[in-house]
Each structure stands twice: as C-alpha cells, then as structure tokens.
C-alpha cells in the first residue's frame, strides 16, 4: 500500500537501559512527495534518518544503552509499516552512567498553543555534566540532533516535513523553533524490578 502525500508517519526509536528499562523517542513526519512512496521506500528512508540521529546519540549515551528497533507507523492510515534496524548496537560512551531518570531535553515549539514536542535523551554519563549543567560538547551534540529534525528534509530522494503530532486533535503542526535546556531534565522511570 502506498504512503500518500500529507500522510503522517510515526517513527519510534526504542532503546533499553542495561537490557531492562525501555526508553523511546517518537518522531513524526509528513510525507511531502505528491507521488507518495511505497512501504519499502518509506522504511529505507526512515532507517536512513534514524542513522543520522543515532550517529549523534551514541556519542552521548553510555555503553549500557542498547538500541533495539525502530518502528514505523502510518498514523493517517492507522497501520504499521514495519520495523527498521538500528545501525549500531548501542551507546558508545564509557564511564559511569547518570541516574536512570536523568535526561537531556530538546523542546520543539510550533505555532499552535500547547502543541510542543519534547524529546528526552536518557542514558548519558557523568562526564556530560559540569556544575550540574550539560557541558558545551553535550549541548553541541544535542543541537546537532535538534537541527537534524528541525527543517524539512529530503531522505532517499523523498521529501518530508518534521511535525509535532497532537494526539487529542489528531492534527499536526510544523516546527517553528526549538530550545535545548542546559539544566538536566528528569523523566520518571520505573525502578528496576519494581512494577511492570
């Protein structure tokens, strides 16, 4: 089945902390090509895009973060398109990891009130901090990730616009600006062995 122009595509990038706690980032794109594209083309494009993000993320994340799978879903057609594989096994940074809930945060803003995209990146290491704020190198990498998602882009010869999806209204809004917090954010996680 083709993926049509203006269809909203959801890419979920799944990771695990020490093989236990699940972390994921969810990204949304709008298909811009008038001709649409096949599932195979979409999967190839999403994998390619994911590789771009991954090549930045693994420079931030501890070696105990394992990359599991990317899942592609056509929200407009309400159907799964398929899984895509990460290129690498996981984070590349050695050292002591920060507490599991500590995360870097990029906030993407749209022109619509309260429609914002928050992307938390967990699994960072202690050396990413100085005086309780992210180091400049960490902020630079986060900026690379943000920029990678910020502007309309061509992947595999197909046009996409990154968008923020409003689950309540089932509408999308294009991104107008983003902010990266220098102060670590916190994403509550279930403690290992506690709850389900």
């Amino acid at each position, binding site marked *: 089945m083709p993926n049509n122009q203006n269809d909203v595509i959801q890419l979920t990038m799944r990771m695990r*902390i020490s093989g236990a706690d699940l972390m994921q980032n969810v990204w949304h794109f709008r298909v811009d090509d008038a001709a649409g594209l096949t599932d195979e083309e979409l999967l190839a494009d999403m994998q390619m895009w994911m590789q771009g993000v991954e090549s930045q993320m693994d420079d931030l994340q501890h070696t105990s973060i394992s990359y599991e799978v990317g899942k592609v879903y056509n929200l407009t057609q309400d159907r799964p398109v398929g899984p895509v594989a990460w290129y690498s096994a996981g984070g590349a940074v050695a050292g*002591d*990891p*920060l*507490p*599991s*809930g*500590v995360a870097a945060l990029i906030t993407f803003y749209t022109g619509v009130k309260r429609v914002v995209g928050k992307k938390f990146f967990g699994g960072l290491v*202690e050396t990413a*901090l*100085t*005086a*309780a*704020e992210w180091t400049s190198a960490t902020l630079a990498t986060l900026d690379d990730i943000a920029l990678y998602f910020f502007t309309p882009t061509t992947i595999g010869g197909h046009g996409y616009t990154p968008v923020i999806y409003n689950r309540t209204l089932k509408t999308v809004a294009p991104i107008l600006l983003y*902010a*990266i*917090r*220098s*102060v*670590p954010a*916190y994403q*509550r996680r279930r*403690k290992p062995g506690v709850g389900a």
Partner: protein
Amino acid sequence: MADNNYLDVIEVLVRSRFKNQIDMFNVWRMRVDDTSGFTNAQVLTDMQTWVTGIVGQQDDIQWNQVYYQAALVSNFTQNRIIGTVNTPRTTGLKSTQPLPTGIAGLITFFTAQPGYRARKYVGGLTIDNSLNRRPAAEAITKLTNMANYFAGRLTLNTRHYYPGVWSFKNGAFYLVTRYVVSSEWAHQRRRQLPLYGV
C-alpha cells in the same frame, strides 16, 4: 516555668542553597519528651547539637557549592519561632562535580499509623556518590547515619526528644518507628531561578 512544654512539637528547618541559587530544605519535627519541659535557650542548645550531627553527615556527601544557611527552630505547637542555630560548616565538602540538581538521596521515616510517613530528600550530592545509576556505598552510609539521628528517643545534652511526623490532616503527631534509606536515586523537582540555566 519552661517555655517549651512536655509534648510540644519542635520544628527544625535545615536549609541549604545549591550554587547559592536554589533553595533546598528539610523539615524535621520532634516532641519535647521530658515532663519538665525546656527553656528556649535549652532547646536552641539542643538543636545546635542535633543540627551539627545531621549536617555533619550530609556535608560529607554534598558538593562544596551547597551553602548551608542557619537552621530555623520553632515551637510548632505554640506557633512561634524560637531562634536560629548555625550549621557546623558553611558548605558541603565534596569537590567533585555535582549530580543534577533534582537528584537526591531519600530517607523515608515510617510511623505506626499506616500511611503517615516522612520523606527527607538530600540533594546536592556529587557524582562520586553515584555508581552505576544508584547511590554508592558512602552515600548510603551517610544517609543511614543521618537517619539514625532521627530514629528512636533522642538524648541531647541530657534532655530528651522524640522524632515524629506531624499530620496536618489529623492534627496529630505520630512517632517515628523505623526508616528506610532508598538504594535508588529519588528526584525532587526544583524550581529554578530565572538566571539559572536556560
């Protein structure tokens, strides 16, 4: 006549400031446990001893840019301030990098009354207090030492106090019966000043 009567609840507000910017504090309450009651001067002397003990544990694991403020001592029952006592040091002792501001060690004090407990968050700790995402052994030890300063009937300069938890809902004071030091990091959301971070 004593200023602070038998069973009056004494409140001690132990305050510190992360980077001299973000307030952190813990509220501790204990009741007067001698029938004679105590004068204000005696309570301040005793609370000076007690704060020295508590802060003397936490300063070993806190960052050297955690600045201690004078602790505020009040008679909670009589709703009046008794005075302030100084901490034994002005800052924490650790010179290594701090953990994120919201990360804290957590001691939970339980009472015999189900559902009534007190949580004490100890923030401003440093990265060498964390090992593989959890509090390291030294942090657990110091937090346990802190907890022991608030467990059981306290003898301070020959006078006695009993730690407990005040229930605003019931208007009652429940004695602490046991405590747990969490082996996981807790998180305490902190408001940040306008000039702190972006």
